[in-house]
């Protein structure tokens, strides 16, 4: 196992919700990363952000780890959930709420409803 893979595995297993993104949750560097971080922030989800721009080995490593070519990538309880398109769809359909609820991740249900109302 490469160092990057071991490091990724440790991070996604030690933290309930992890977002691999370009930039940080407070200062995203890409529109797609910004959108997913924005949804999680708005829903009050406590998540760990990993800035792939700060580490080339992780930037490539995360793509190999999930066999997924793009960033951002969201992990819940060690499982890859999806990228920007999938997270957006799951937010609007309520599936993301369900996933968080099933995994004991606390979030603001009212905020999630507001996102859906604004995009309904």
């Amino acid at each position, binding site marked *: 196992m490469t160092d990057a893979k071991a490091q990724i595995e440790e991070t996604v297993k030690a933290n309930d919700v992890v977002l691999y993104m370009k930039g940080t949750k407070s200062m995203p560097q*890409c529109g797609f990363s910004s959108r997913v971080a924005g949804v999680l922030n708005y829903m009050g989800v406590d998540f760990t952000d990993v800035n792939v721009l700060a580490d080339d080995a992780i930037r490539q490593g995360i793509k190999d780890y999930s066999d*997924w*070519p793009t960033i951002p990538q969201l992990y819940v309880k060690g499982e890859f959930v999806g990228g920007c398109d*999938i997270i957006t769809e*799951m937010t609007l359909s309520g599936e993301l709420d369900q996933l968080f609820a099933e995994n004991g991740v606390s979030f603001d249900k009212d905020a999630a409803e507001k996102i859906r109302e604004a995009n309904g």
Partner: protein
Amino acid sequence: MSRTEMIETRLREAFAPRELVVRDDSERHRGHAGFQEGGESHFHVVLRSEAFKGQSRIARHRAVHGALGPELVAAIHALSLDLGE
């Protein structure tokens, strides 16, 4: 062949879609990271195909990535996918 044509051709061959829209969104991203002069850096694809029946969202996206091939996926800065049956 332009990237737009390559994307269309490969997706038609792989999924025989009943609906396919490949939109070059590059102009909307002028000045953003990854913008390339001449466009063809940012794409939005709408694809409806029977082939996606019973597949998870991740499986659908993976199937599209696979059909496009790693070189094309890597060459495109941003690919937004709206996939359904």
